[in-house]
């Protein structure tokens, strides 16, 4: 657990970057600091590992006041990831990752083995280990940055806009993998971003800061969307808060309907028969995984993949209300496809059924 108690940072020159910040980042959870540019996110983060010393107030990690600890030893126990990766250009990827283990006095062989293991863990080909950072793409460098921060298995990780320098597709991948990793590792993470969607996606709790380093609201993403504390927070969260809030609301039992299906490769005549007059019919593979919708009236011969309408999203049973509603709204048949954990079709749901489930929830309910 990391706790800020009335922490203030005034830079020489008089800028108050952080003004009386008190908050707690619980053990094993992701706490996101989000806010407009210059609101003191980086300053707050760097005060944790003492790269910046607070002007007043205390910061404790697991009850120990950081100002009483040796800065270098403190930092070796805290992973740190920055936007550009900050990799050492003159060291190979493996050497970059092994930096902290070697500082901690691990023997070389063990540090190398560990570096190899982490390379795989963050989804990189071990072949890349012998390369230099300038031989990697931005997304790969960012993964190495994460691997390097994890190398000595620190309980605490500080991340300063780690995914903001890569394109949106890669960013989404990195975020998903980061969540998967965190699911296995349960680190205490303080994560800085100025992207509210990223904050909502990654944060167990989100601290919205305003300029001057003042805490506007600290809450779970669902609570923030459902109940922003003031106009600043509401504006910062942006539009579609009601709809986005559904992402955090687990769908209750939805009335599922059996959906007639045809196998890929069936004849159009078979499909038309199964559709029984309906315009659309759902096509699945041998494992009953939904592939897309087909319109038998407009096809002839055998149904192959090129014939399928793939616009519909697929929701998981027990997933969020947002995913279920989106599945219904995006399917050309207006029947939302729901699958089980293994991706096999369970049934379909109609938008109006999702909506009535939403309406039955108590007002202002928060997951």
């Amino acid at each position, binding site marked *: 657990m990391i706790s800020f108690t009335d922490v203030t940072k005034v830079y020489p020159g008089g800028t108050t970057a952080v003004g009386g910040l008190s908050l707690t980042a619980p053990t094993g959870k992701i706490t996101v600091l989000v806010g407009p540019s210059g609101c003191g996110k980086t300053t707050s983060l760097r005060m944790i*590992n003492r*790269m910046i010393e607070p002007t007043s107030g205390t910061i404790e990690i697991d009850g120990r006041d950081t100002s009483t600890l040796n*800065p*270098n*030893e*403190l*930092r*070796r126990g*805290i992973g*740190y990831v*920055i*936007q*550009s*990766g*900050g*990799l*050492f*250009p*003159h*060291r190979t990827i493996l050497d970059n990752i092994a*930096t*902290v283990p070697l*500082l901690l006095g691990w023997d070389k062989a063990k540090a190398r083995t560990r570096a190899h293991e982490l390379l795989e863990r963050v989804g990189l080909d071990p072949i890349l280990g012998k*390369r*230099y*950072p*300038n*031989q*990697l*793409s931005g997304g790969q460098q960012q993964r190495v940055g994460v691997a*390097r921060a994890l190398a000595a298995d620190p309980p605490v990780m*500080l991340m300063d806009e780690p995914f903001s320098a890569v394109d949106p597709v890669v960013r989404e991948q990195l975020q998903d993998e980061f969540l998967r990793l965190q699911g296995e590792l349960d680190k205490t993470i303080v994560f800085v971003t100025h992207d509210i969607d990223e904050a909502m996606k990654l944060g167990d709790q989100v601290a919205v800061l305003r300029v001057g380093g003042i805490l506007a609201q600290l809450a779970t993403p669902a609570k923030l969307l459902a109940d922003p504390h003031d106009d600043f927070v509401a504006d910062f969260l942006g539009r579609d808060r009601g709809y986005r809030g559904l992402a955090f609301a687990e769908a209750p039992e939805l009335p599922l309907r059996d959906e007639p299906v045809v196998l890929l490769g069936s004849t159009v005549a078979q499909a038309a028969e199964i559709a029984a007059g309906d315009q659309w019919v759902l096509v699945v593979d041998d494992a009953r995984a939904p592939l897309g919708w087909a319109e038998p009236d407009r096809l002839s011969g055998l149904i192959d993949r090129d014939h399928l309408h793939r616009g519909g999203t697929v929701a998981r049973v027990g997933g969020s209300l947002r995913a279920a509603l989106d599945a219904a709204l995006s399917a050309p048949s207006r029947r939302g496809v729901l699958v089980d954990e293994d991706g096999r079709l369970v049934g379909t749901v109609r938008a109006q059924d999702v909506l009535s489930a939403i309406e039955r929830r108590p007002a202002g309910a928060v997951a």
Partner: protein
Amino acid sequence: MKWFLGHLDQVWQLMLNHAVLALIPLVVGLLLAIPLGWLATRYRVLYSPLIAGTGLLYTIPSLALFILMPLVLGTGILDPVNVVVALTIYTIALLVRTVADGLGSVPDDVVQAATAMGIGRGRRFWSVELPLAVPVIAAGLRVAAVSNVSIVSVAALLGIPQLGSLFTDGFARNFLDPIAVGILACMVLALAMDLAILWISRAATPWLRTRVAT
């Protein structure tokens, strides 16, 4: 040509002298310029005085410096130490700025990352900042090397034997051959030192010769 073939041994000996007189100051000057350059980047207030101060040293005429050295050091006028110390001063004059610029060229996020990993200041300097400054420092070192080779010849006026002696000798006898040979030998020596530094710098920076991903 005939003169050259007849004096091979002598030219070789002068060239060796010349190389030693140019090289020792280069190495010593570099070793002294590194801490000075570090001070200039570490303490912002020292930057201007250090760069301007050391830069000013380069404007002292070399002959004057050679003649002044015995007075300051208490050495004999013919002592090669005078030349070595004087050239060390010139090397420092050229390299302090280079070292400071080289250290300044290290990307800030790399230094920040090093700090954040708990690499102490001293270790960070030797293992991160200095290696990354090598390309810039090497470029300055090449200039200093060539400059040293050319300034050493001035010491011939004081009678310290090196390639410059061929100029004074040829001039005194109104004989062109030694002068031409001296010039050529100086150029060869300068080129050799230049290439040697280039080669060492390349060997020390393998990461710069990699295919850059796009």
